[in-house]
C-alpha cells in the first residue's frame, strides 16, 4: 500500500500532496516538513530509499523518492510494495505529467495542481496501484478532458478569454485594475 504521495520543491514548498490515510492538516504539514528535511539533505548520487520517517508509518514504511530538477517526488510505502517498482511508478507519473503539460515544470504543478491530481488518480487509487501503462492513462485523461470541454462549450469562452488576458504578461497596474467594477456597471444597465 502507498500511504502518501508528496511532491515538493527544493525549498520544501508543497506542490501536490495526497494522503491515503487520514491526517489532519497540521499533521500533514508536519509530515511534509519532516519528509523534506530527510530527503533534501541527501546527495543526488545516493540511493533513493529512506527509512526513519518518524511521523508517518513506522518500521514497516519506507520513503521512496526521486528528484527531478526543482521537484522531489516522494512516495511513502509499506513493505508490500516493491521498491524498484515504485521507482518505476514515479517515473511513469512524471512522464505522464510531461505528456499532459508538454514539458512539465514546477510552474505547471503550481498552477494546475488539480490537473496533476487527475493524473495521479488514474495512476493510484486509494493507495493501490491502478494503472501503470502510460498510453492507457493518457487515453483516459484525454476522454475525461473532452467531456469537460464539451460541457463548457461556448459559455466558457469569455472566461477563458479573461484568464488569457490575466495570464498575459501585463504590467502590474493593469492587472491589479479592479475588474469586478465592470459587472456592476453592466448590472445597472437596464435590459
Amino acid at each position, binding site marked *: 500500500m502507498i500511504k502518501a504521495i508528496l511532491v515538493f520543491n527544493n525549498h520544501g514548498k508543497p506542490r501536490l500532496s495526497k494522503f491515503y490515510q487520514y491526517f489532519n*492538516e497540521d499533521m500533514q504539514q508536519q509530515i511534509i516538513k519532516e519528509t523534506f528535511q530527510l530527503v533534501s539533505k541527501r*546527495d543526488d548520487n545516493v540511493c533513493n530509499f529512506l527509512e526513519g520517517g518518524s511521523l508517518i508509518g513506522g518500521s514497516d514504511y519506507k520513503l521512496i523518492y526521486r528528484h527531478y530538477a526543482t521537484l522531489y517526488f516522494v512516495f511513502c510505502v509499506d513493505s508490500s510494495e516493491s*521498491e524498484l517498482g515504485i521507482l518505476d511508478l514515479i517515473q511513469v507519473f512524471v512522464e505522464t505529467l510531461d505528456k499532459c503539460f508538454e514539458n512539465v515544470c514546477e510552474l505547471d504543478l503550481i*498552477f494546475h*495542481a488539480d490537473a496533476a491530481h487527475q493524473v495521479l488518480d488514474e495512476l493510484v487509487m*486509494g493507495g493501490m496501484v491502478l494503472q*501503470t501503462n502510460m498510453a492507457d492513462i493518457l487515453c483516459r485523461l484525454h476522454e475525461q478532458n473532452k*467531456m469537460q470541454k464539451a460541457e463548457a462549450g461556448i459559455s466558457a469562452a469569455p472566461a477563458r478569454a*479573461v484568464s488569457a488576458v490575466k495570464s498575459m504578461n501585463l504590467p502590474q497596474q493593469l492587472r491589479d485594475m479592479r475588474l469586478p467594477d465592470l*459587472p456592476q456597471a453592466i448590472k445597472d444597465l437596464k435590459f
Partner: protein
Amino acid sequence: MALKKVKGNFERMFDKNLTDLVRGIRNNKDNEAKYIAQCMEEIKVELRQDNIGVKANAVAKLTYLQMLGYDISWAIFNIIEVMSSNKFTFKRIGYLAASQSFHADSELLMLTTNMIRKDLNAQNQYEAGLALSGLSCFISHDLARDLANDIMTLMSSTKPYLRMKAVLMMYKVFLRYPEALRPAFPKLKEKLEDPDPGVQSAAVNVVCELARKNPKNYLSLAPVFFKLMTTSTNNWMLIKIIKLFGLMTQYEPDIGRKITQSLIDLICSTTAMSLLYECINTVIAVLISISSGMPGHAASVQLCVQKLRILIEDSDQNLKYLGLLAMSRILKSHPKSVQAHKDLVLACLDDKDESIRLRALGLLYGMVSKKNLMEIVKKLMMHMERAEGTLYRDELLTRMIEICSQNNYQHVVDFEWYITVLAELTEMETSAKHGCMIAAQLTEVGARVAQTRGFAARECAALCARAAASPPRAASREVLYAAAYVLSEYCTEEDVMRESISALTLCASADAGGPHMRARAVCVHAALKLAAKLLRAFELRGDRRSVIAVLHEILAGVRPLLCSEDMEVQERAHNTTALMSLVLRRLQPADPALADAPLEPPSDTLVDHEQSNGLEKNENGEINEEESSKSLSGGLIEEIVSLFEGELKPVAPKAQKKVPIPADLDLNQWLSRDRWSSDSSSSEGEDEGTALFTAPQVDAKPVTQFTPEELQMLREARRQEQANNPHYLKDDSPRSYQQDDIPIAEIALEVPLQVQSKRSDKYLITRENSKKAKKEKRPSKKRKNKIERHFSESDSDDGADRVGRPAVAEGGELPDGAAPSDDEQSLHDDPHRALDLDLDLPLREEELLSSRIQQYPLPESGLLIKKKESKKNKSSEKRSSEKSSHKKKVKNSKRNKEIDLMLPEIANNNDLGDNLLIETGEDNAPKNDLTIDDASDKKQREKLKTEKHKKSKKDVKDKDSKKKKTSKKDKHETKIGYEEALGISTPSKEVI
C-alpha cells in the same frame, strides 16, 4: 432567462479563480497569511451564492489552500453540494476536494450515500470512476455497508475501467466493513482470471493486500496464483504474486517447494531488476521456511547470495541498498553464506550513503565472531567520532551494544575491553536515551560477569571522578546513575573507595549535573555504602584514625546536601549524616564535626535511640557488652554494613508476571480506604522486555512521605523562596567548560605514533600480539582445535579464548516453577484482524448483501445497468441465492478439474494444506470472527453441520467416484483428508 445566464457568466469571469489565487499568493510573499485570510473571506462569500459554478470555483480554491495546510472542514457541506452537481467538470472539483479533506469520521458523510450511489450507477464510466476514486479516500463504515452492493455490482460491469476500480475499491470496503468480505470473495476470486489484464492485476493487488495480513486464509488460491505466475508477463503483477508466495510459504512450506524451480528460472531469465530482486526475496523466504532437506538447497542459497553480491557491487546505489536488505534476510537462516561476503559488508560501512551504511550495520550483527569483534567495534567507534547526524550516531551506538551483548555476550572474550568501550562511548556526545542503554549494559555486565567486577568498579570510579570534576553531558548523567551503583556495589579497593566518596558527594550536588539529574540521590546512597565498607575494613585492622578520617570526610561531603532542593537527595543526606554521626559519637563523643550534625540526639540517650530501632536492638546490646573492647565502634559499623549486604541477581524480564498470586490475596480489596494511598500505586513491569536491568534497584525504601502533588508544591514554594532571596546563589550560573581533567589515554608502546588511539585499543593490540605468539605455537595445537571445533559452531574461535573468557551468568531469576517463555500476544489495533475470516466456509444466508438492495431503491439508470449485467454476468448475490444450482456445481467442479489437471501436484498439495486449514479454521472461527455476533454464529454453524450431514449422504456416491480418481494421483492422502478437501475446492456452492 438566457440573458440572465449570460449575465451570470459574465459576472463570473471576473471572480478570482484558482490561477488568480495562486498568483496572488506568490505576489504576496511577505504577508501570505493575511492575503489568504482575505481570500478565505471571499471564498466564504462565494460559497453562499446560488450559482454552482461560483461554488465550484470556491471549492477548487479551497482544495489548493488545504494543501497549504489550511483547515477546510467547515466547507464540507458546500463540497458535497458541488459533488452533487450534474456537470462532470464540477463533480471533478467536488470529488477532488472531498478526497483531500474528508475522512471516515467526517460529519455529514451520511448525506453523500445516495449521491454517491447515483454516481456509481451513472451511465458514463468516468463519472462512476470518479466516484470510486473519491470514495476510496474517505469511505466510512456506514458508507461501506450501504454501498458494498453497488460496488460489487460494478465489479462485473462490462467496462474494464470500472471493473478495475471497483475491484480495488472492494479492499477499502473490506477494511471498513469486514462482513462484506465473505460474500464478495467468490467474485473477487473470479476477477483473478478476468480477460482484462488491468482487472486481473487489480484483483491480484487486492488479494495480496488481504493475504498479507492473514496469509493462512488464502492458501487455497495458490494454484490460481501459480498459473498466473507462469503465464503472465506483467511485471507489476508478477512482483505482487511473488511477494505473496513469499508470505504464504511461511505457513505452507510445500508451496515454497513447488515454486522454487520456477522462481530460479525467472531469476536466471529476467532482465527486470525489480522482478529479479523480488524473486530472490521469495526464494530466501522459501529457504527459511524449509530450513533443509530440499534438493539443491545449498545451491539455491548460493545462487541467491551470488546474485545479491552482483547487486551490492553494482554502481547503482539503489541496487546496493536492496542487495544489503536481502542479505540481512538470508543472514537469519544462513549466516555462514553471508559471512563469506564480509569484505563487501565492511566496505559498505564506509559508503557515503547513510541508508547503505545503516543497512550494512544491520548485517554486522551476524558477521561478528570472537575473533573480529574488537576490530569491528573499533571501526564503529571511529565512525562514531566522525558521524554527523544523530540518527546515524544513535544507530551506531545501538548496533554496537547489540553486537556485543548478543546471545549473552557470546562474542565478548575480554570484558575489561568491553567496559572500557562503554566508558569511551559515554564520553562521546550522545543523547540521554543512549546514556540509559550504556548504563543498563554497565549494570548488566557487573551483575553477570563476576570476574570483571573489580575492573568495572575502577572504571566507574573514574567516570564519577570525571563527572565531579566537570559537569557531565546528557549521556554521562544517565551513565552516572549506573556507575554510582556499580562502584559502590562491587568496589573492594580501599584507595579507590576513599577517593570516590568525595567525588560521589560532589556529583550529588546540584551544580554537577543540573538539578534534574536522577543520579543524584543514588550518588549520596553510594557514598554511604562505600563509607560503610571502608569503615569496616579499617575497623578490622583497628585503624582508628582512618575510621575517623573517613567519617569526617563523608560528613563534610554530605553537609551541603542537607539542604539540597531535591527532596530525595536531602532525605538521603540526612540519613547518611545521622548514621555516620552515630558512629562518630560512639568513637569520639566530643568530635567537633558532631556539632554540625543537625539531627543530633543528646549523647546520653544514644543507647535508647538504638534500642528503639527494633531489629537491631538485641544484637546491638549483646555486642555492646561482649565485644566493645575488640571493635572500635562496638559493632555499630558491622550493623551499618549489614544494611548493604546481599548480592543483587539478574531477574528474568517477565519474572514479575510469573509470580503466582497467593491464594489468600484479594487484589480487589482495598488495603486502605485512604484516597491518597491509591495515587502512589506503582507501575511495575511496564518496561519489561527492553533489558534485564532497566535501572539499578538501589533504593528499596520510599524516602519521602509526601505525595507527588505535595512534593511539587513544596518544591515550587522552595524555588519561589530562593528566587526571592537575594542572598541565595542561583545554581544556573554559567560554568567554564574544562576538559583537561579527563585522563589521557595510555598508549601502548607497540603502536608507533597512532594519533587516534583509544584506551580500548590496547586490548586489541595485546590480543593481536598474543595471536602472533600463538601462531608460532599453532602446529602443535592443531589437533586440539579440531576437536573443539566439533563442540562449537563458530569456526573462528580459538581454544585459548574460551579458556580465558570469564563466566557469564545466564538467564535470570524467576519465581519457582515458572519457565522463561513469551506467552504474551501483542494486540494491535489493526483493521486487518477483523478480516481474518475463513473464506472457504460456505456462505450463510444472513451474510448475503443482496438484502440491502431492497432497502435502498436504486435510481433507474442503475437498475438498467444491473439488468443488462445480470444477463451476461450472473452476479454473485443471485448465484448464491439460487438454491438449486446443480448446473453450476457441475460447471464449477469441471473448472476445478481443469486446474487440477494443469497443476496436479500443486492442487493436491494444496488440498493437504486446506485440510489443515479447515480443521483449524473451524476451531478458531468463533474466536476470530470479531465482528460477527457469536451466538448467532454458532447456531448457524450447527445448522450448517446438520445440513452437511444430509447432503453428504446424497453426495457419497459422487464423491466416492471422484475419490477413486484422485487417490490414484496421490497415494499419500488419507480418505478423510480428501473428503474435507473436496468441500473446499468447490466453495460456497456445495451447501447452499
